């Protein structure tokens, strides 16, 4: 589904990703772990199309299509959705309108018409209850005055409504207390499906206690230096990253 090959990225002239390779197949959940500054957030930003990241070499394909050639919105409509580490506040734009506009943009790209209002409300009602959010959030401006946990729930709510093929979750666990963590994890787990993939970027093992990955990668200094199963994450938690660095240097 997602294929990243020999990806080199510079940010403001600084070489951050240095030949990253990654393959995520449908039905899988991948976690990318790594120390601060390894390039984790750069990877998700480049996949989503954020400006200021220069790809100097390599490729990213999604369902066989060149992601780097697509506009930001096109990536989202094709089902490649980024859940933000720091969801931005958008004063004056109601949450419900963002959801409707985004869903209709996707439907339009798929050749479907606008979603009828009753159907939309039914869908929203179901998803917002699942995320244990109050319906009043719909009328509030996107993320404005939300707590850290509410912002993250809101990101997952958008995922549940938009049903991406590939959900890219950037440090979705940061700033969450244990209750919010469970709700967010339940939301993510409910997305697991045979025709869908999830790619999580995280600094901590604790998220993986709630969402068990099929594959764990260790990203160090712009490259994936080790991959393994869920056990690898536990080992990292116990031993830190140094041993991986030594192993890869050897």
């Amino acid at each position, binding site marked *: 589904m997602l294929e990243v090959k020999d990806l080199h990225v510079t940010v403001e002239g600084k070489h951050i990703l240095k030949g990253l390779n990654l393959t995520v197949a449908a039905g899988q959940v991948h976690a990318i772990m790594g120390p601060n500054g390894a390039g984790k957030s750069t990877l998700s930003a480049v996949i989503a199309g954020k400006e200021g990241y220069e790809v100097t070499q390599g490729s990213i394909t999604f369902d066989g299509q060149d992601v780097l050639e697509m506009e930001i919105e096109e990536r*989202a409509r094709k089902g490649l959705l980024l859940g933000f580490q720091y969801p*931005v506040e958008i004063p004056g734009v109601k949450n419900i309108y963002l959801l409707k506009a985004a869903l209709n943009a996707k439907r339009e790209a798929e050749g479907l018409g606008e979603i009828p209002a009753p159907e939309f409300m039914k869908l929203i009602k179901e998803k917002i209850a699942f995320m244990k959010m109050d319906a009043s959030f719909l009328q509030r401006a996107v993320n404005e005055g939300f707590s850290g946990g509410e912002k993250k729930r809101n990101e997952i709510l958008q995922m549940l409504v938009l049903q991406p093929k590939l959900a890219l979750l950037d440090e979705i666990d940061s700033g969450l207390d244990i209750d919010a963590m469970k709700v967010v994890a339940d939301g993510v787990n409910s997305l697991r499906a045979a025709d869908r993939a999830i790619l999580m970027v995280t600094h901590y093992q604790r998220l993986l206690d709630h969402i068990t990955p099929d594959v764990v990668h260790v990203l160090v200094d712009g490259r994936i230096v080790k991959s393994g199963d869920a056990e690898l994450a536990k080992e990292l938690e116990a031993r830190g990253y140094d041993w991986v660095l030594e192993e890869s240097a050897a």
Partner: protein
Amino acid sequence: MSEVQGFLDRLSERAAARGAEPTWIAARRQAGAARFEALGFPDRKVEAWKYTDVRGIARGDFALAESADFSPASAAALTLPIAAHRLSFVDGVFAPALSDLGELSAGVSVERLSQALAANHEAVGGALGRLAGVDFSPFTALNTAFAEEGAVIRLAPGAVVERPIVLQFLSSAGATPRMSHPRVLVTAGARSQATLIEHQVGEEGAANFSNLVSEVLLERGAILTHYKLQELPQTDHHIASLHVDQARDSRFTSFNLNLGGALARNDIVSDLNGQGAEANFFGLFFGQGRQLLDTHTLVNHNAPLTFSNENYKGILDDRARGIFNGKVIVKRDSQKIEAHQNNANLLLSDRAEIDTKPELEIYADDVKCSHGATTGQLDEEAVFALRARGIDEATARGLLTLAFAGEVMEQVAIDAVAERVELAVAGKLPERFNLAGLVEAAVALHEE
């Protein structure tokens, strides 16, 4: 000088063609002409016109329209689709075919200025020019010299006008540019209530000059909501001043919505003369291309316990220029007043420009006043966040621009007016009504 002379020549031609008028009108015209001749067009050395170059008007060769020619089809497309008491003017000339006053309730009189002058009502003679004196600006003087048509609205004490009164000023794309000097007078008796919409709109290519002066007298407890919706073509020149006199417990709310014109200048002045009087000024200007949109407001707190609240939003794209000057004066004995003012601006291009200046002059010591001005750009993080959800860039920018205008637009109670503004500001954006329905549905969900 020759620029002024051209206008004076037009004035003498017009005076010769016009029949005899009551002496008070003739005397005011003379005073207006004399004042205009003495002042001339303001240049940029005049503080109030520092950023606003009126040479496009001064050097223009504008004729006075003789007849109201406007294609009914294009008029229909431009007219606000609301049930209203409507008077229409084409380049200042009354257009009966496009007007429909309908039935007015008891105590409500809506006349054309020409009718009111011919009838020589005492009340009109006493009020006209009282607030907008010839010294206010050369354009007010010029209007006083020329004004023949417009509207006189009189509300008896307690009269309530349910539907809005719409004064539609159409600008036509004729072979030669035209000028018009409409004059509006509203006298609202005690506890009367009305909504007045002044709507400036025109055909593509119209390059005329309209110079409107409006005077509003609110008696004790009267409530007037005033909308100005200015959506002239970007080749038109428009100058307007609105003068309001407020007695005790009266409430005046102004929506000053400026979208069009090559140059549009609005002056709004409110005198809060009695305790409990309240003035609310809401404004939005949206400039594109090389438009220049200039707003000057002045609130005089002449009495204690008076309230004013002002919120203006400016959005400027391309090489457009905006000017906002908001002045509040609190007289020496005007204690316990409250005055708040805010102006926020959004620049959508590097070459757009805004000059904003809040001015407070306070001579009383027990007052509550605030003012603020901010200028910024669209939040690119927010643009990215919306695009990352599949919303195309134009819609994302439109949505955020509209969100910026939201604080002001939320106050607009007439949907047809809000829709015009939203479409202009956001381009292809959302259907307002679907959106409203959506919010209602969300509320219902919440209450379940």
